[in-house]
């Protein structure tokens, strides 16, 4: 397959020129093409924000829901039909702010979905307020004294909760991003990819150059199965490592644990009411 197999010719892309989201979109199309995934089997789930609009610019099924809530429908879509490939696309505010509780509990559930979080350290769509990942001293019209909260560290939190796949990418490096996306989608279980992404309109601090200067890739011999080490690397600040921090291939997924699929893999919509069982249940009350 070719990346353009995922093009939507009539899409009215509403992102600013130069936005990191555009690179992520291109990398994602290339990833899906390389993995030969059929758009009919693909479901993009998103919340609200600039990142959340991505599914409208790529070919596939789409559930674009509420701000912060994308992981709940994503989990349930996979649970209702495990044959589908589910990719959740959200922003840092959407995922870690409004959706923080769901982020935590989705890691615990471990559905086999991929979670791409466009982390531009700012709220883009609502025009430049602080996000949970905004760095200290970041000034905005709402944070008039500058941000004085500790930035949320999604990787460290995910590893602490034993998320089954935790990685960080940088939108400006498409080649490496594609490799990380491929590994995330191929991974069985919940896969978090936090993607550093410049917002050219509202984040004048964490720019493309800033990300380039403040990131580097984990060494080739980094062992992603070493959870303590992964946690330690995830807490590095100043210079931020990129790559696959942690992977736990041994965890069972949410769907695997559902008894409905123990003997039969049929998606839920194909199952019909067994009237005899219903009658037996009613009769048991006599």
């Amino acid at each position: 397959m070719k990346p353009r197999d995922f093009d939507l010719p009539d899409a009215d892309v509403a992102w600013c020129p130069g936005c990191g989201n555009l690179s992520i979109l291109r990398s994602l199309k290339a990833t899906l093409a390389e993995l030969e995934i059929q758009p009919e089997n693909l479901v993009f789930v998103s919340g609200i924000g600039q990142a959340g609009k991505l599914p409208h610019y790529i070919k596939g099924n789409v559930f674009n829901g509420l701000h912060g809530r994308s992981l709940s429908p994503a989990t349930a879509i996979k649970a209702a039909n495990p044959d589908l490939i589910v990719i959740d696309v959200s922003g840092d505010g959407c995922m870690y702010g409004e959706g923080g509780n769901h982020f935590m509990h989705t890691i615990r559930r471990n559905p086999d979905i991929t979670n791409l979080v466009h982390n531009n350290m700012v709220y883009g769509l609502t025009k430049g307020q602080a996000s949970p990942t905004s760095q200290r001293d970041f000034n905005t019209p709402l944070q008039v004294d500058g941000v004085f909260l500790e930035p949320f560290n999604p990787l460290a939190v995910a590893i602490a909760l034993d998320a089954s796949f935790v990685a960080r990418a940088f939108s400006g490096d498409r080649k490496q991003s594609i490799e990380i996306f491929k590994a995330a989608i191929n991974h069985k279980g919940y896969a978090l990819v936090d993607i550093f992404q410049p917002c050219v309109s509202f984040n004048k601090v964490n720019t493309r150059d800033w990300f380039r200067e403040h990131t580097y890739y984990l060494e080739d011999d980094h062992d992603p199965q070493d959870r303590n080490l992964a946690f330690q690397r995830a807490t590095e600040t100043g210079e931020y490592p990129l790559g696959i921090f942690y992977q736990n291939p041994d965890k069972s997924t949410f769907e695997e644990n559902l008894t409905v699929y123990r003997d039969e893999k049929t998606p839920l919509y194909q199952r019909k009411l067994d009237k005899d069982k219903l009658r037996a249940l009613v009769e048991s009350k006599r």
Partner: protein
Amino acid sequence: MPVFLKEEDISIVLCGEAGQGIQTVEVILAQAVKQTGYHIFSTKEYMSRVRGGENSTQIRISSDRVASYVDRIDILLALSYGAIDHLKDRISPNTVIIGDPEHIKSARESENISSGLNANFIEIPLMQTAEDIGGIIYANVIVAGALSCLLDIPKEIFDGLISDMFARKGPEILQNDLKAGEAGYTLGKGLMESEENQVRLSLEAHSTVRDELLLSGTDAAGMGCLAGGCRFMSSYPMTPSTPLQAFLAGNAHDFELVYEQAEDEIAAINMALGASYAGARSMVATSGSGFALMEEGVGLAGMTETPVVIYLGQRPGPAVGLPTRTSQEDLNLALYSGTGEFPRIIFAPGKLEDAFTLSQQAFNLADKYQIPVFILSDQYFADCYYNIPSLPLEEVGNEDYLIKTTPDYRRYLITHDGVTPRGIPGYGEGMVIVDSDEHDEEGHITENLEIRTHMVDKRLKKMDHIRKDALAPELVGSDDYANLVLGWGSTYWPIREALENINKKGLNPDSRKTSFLHLKQVYPLHSSVTDYLEKAEDVIILENNAQGQMANIIQLETGLEIQEKFLKYNGMPFSVEEVEKRLLQFMGIEDSGPDGHDKPSGEVL
């Protein structure tokens, strides 16, 4: 002390602290009574705590069908020090209070109640007997045994039920429970044969009752959900919706459904919508505050036209209100939940058969119109049990509204009736695109204001057909009435029984003059509701809320104002007696009945 005799319809109330196993007695007795061939109704009221407090269960046992709460207490079994005080407003000179000497003594000594409490006390050595068997935890089974004996319930039936219930707790506990039952029968026999404190009950058993169903409101709704093809439920525990969650979780294996306890109600409804998008018939169950958290998700269902069934077990608010009590206060919340304008259906079952049928139809209609459909229940309805001959299983028919998509599939294609054939991802070659933002026919986000108008029209157009599909209200009584009593949801039986009593007592010379209209679909209303109302000279509505929410909706929908309202909102259901009294006033008949230990608990507007 006079001999206590009671025939036909007996109201027994058991009262004790949480943790004393009163609900166990309720379950055993309800089954035993039904298996013996008597009609049974039970309902509980309880405090929001796991230990202590005062909780009571009413068990009505009757030669005829019964299905409603009454204030009257014929026999009170007091299992705790506070029991008598807790129920003093409902104790009359005809009440027989049976209890341990200690508990009765403390009640007699209490200033709070001793004055004016003119009941018959019978002491039985409950606690001592329990201690002798192995501990006071056996008191509940002793009480069950004593009552069973008084009710002439065959000992084999009783022992069978005890064995079913306690076998899994191990042979020692089972043996003790059987012994406790035995001791209870002995105490019961003592009362039947006593010279001074004789208690004699006489009821007519019907063999047909033995084969009937004994269900709670929750059971009936739960079976309806299964009948409707529910495949996915995500919810967060909240009284009184938790029993329905437990019912479906408990049947998940047999009926191939997924139950997931979400991290909160927001996740719950968003999960249900995700599963529904993927084609699974989905639902949530919650109560007021939990539903308040779901509201944005209701709007999402409206915008994305994703079917979902919402079971809303009402209890008093605002906020956490009275967690374990009953109310009909969240009608407005259901009706107006979610941003913007979109169609919905709201059902409110009043009897078990309705709970089954409406729940099943909720899933069908949610799928047919791709909308949220509500089942408005409440604590009283969810927790009450009674026997019915059967459920209309034969009428269950689930339509399949899913289509296989073609490559040019458009999820929001504008059609003449507003309903687009519904595709789901992975079934067919098309893309299924849904969006919480306004969207075009394909489902892609748009800010085109013309498309916006068309999409609003498309969604609202469904309302015409939803109205045509609306379920007719049930008229109880002659259709040649002058007075009309209106009720909705769980008030069905108390109103119906009150009217029947008035007629039976001959207080109403022209019984045809007053009829009862029960609304089970509360939104949108069936077109006949206007006709029924216009025909009546006088109308009264009864609601378990303070503002007459249903009356207001009726006015909004029909333009007709209901002047008389009987509203109760102290957290308890309407009792037959208070309804009777109020209806006599409404009908212009003096209340001449002697059973006037009524305390007004709400406002009479």
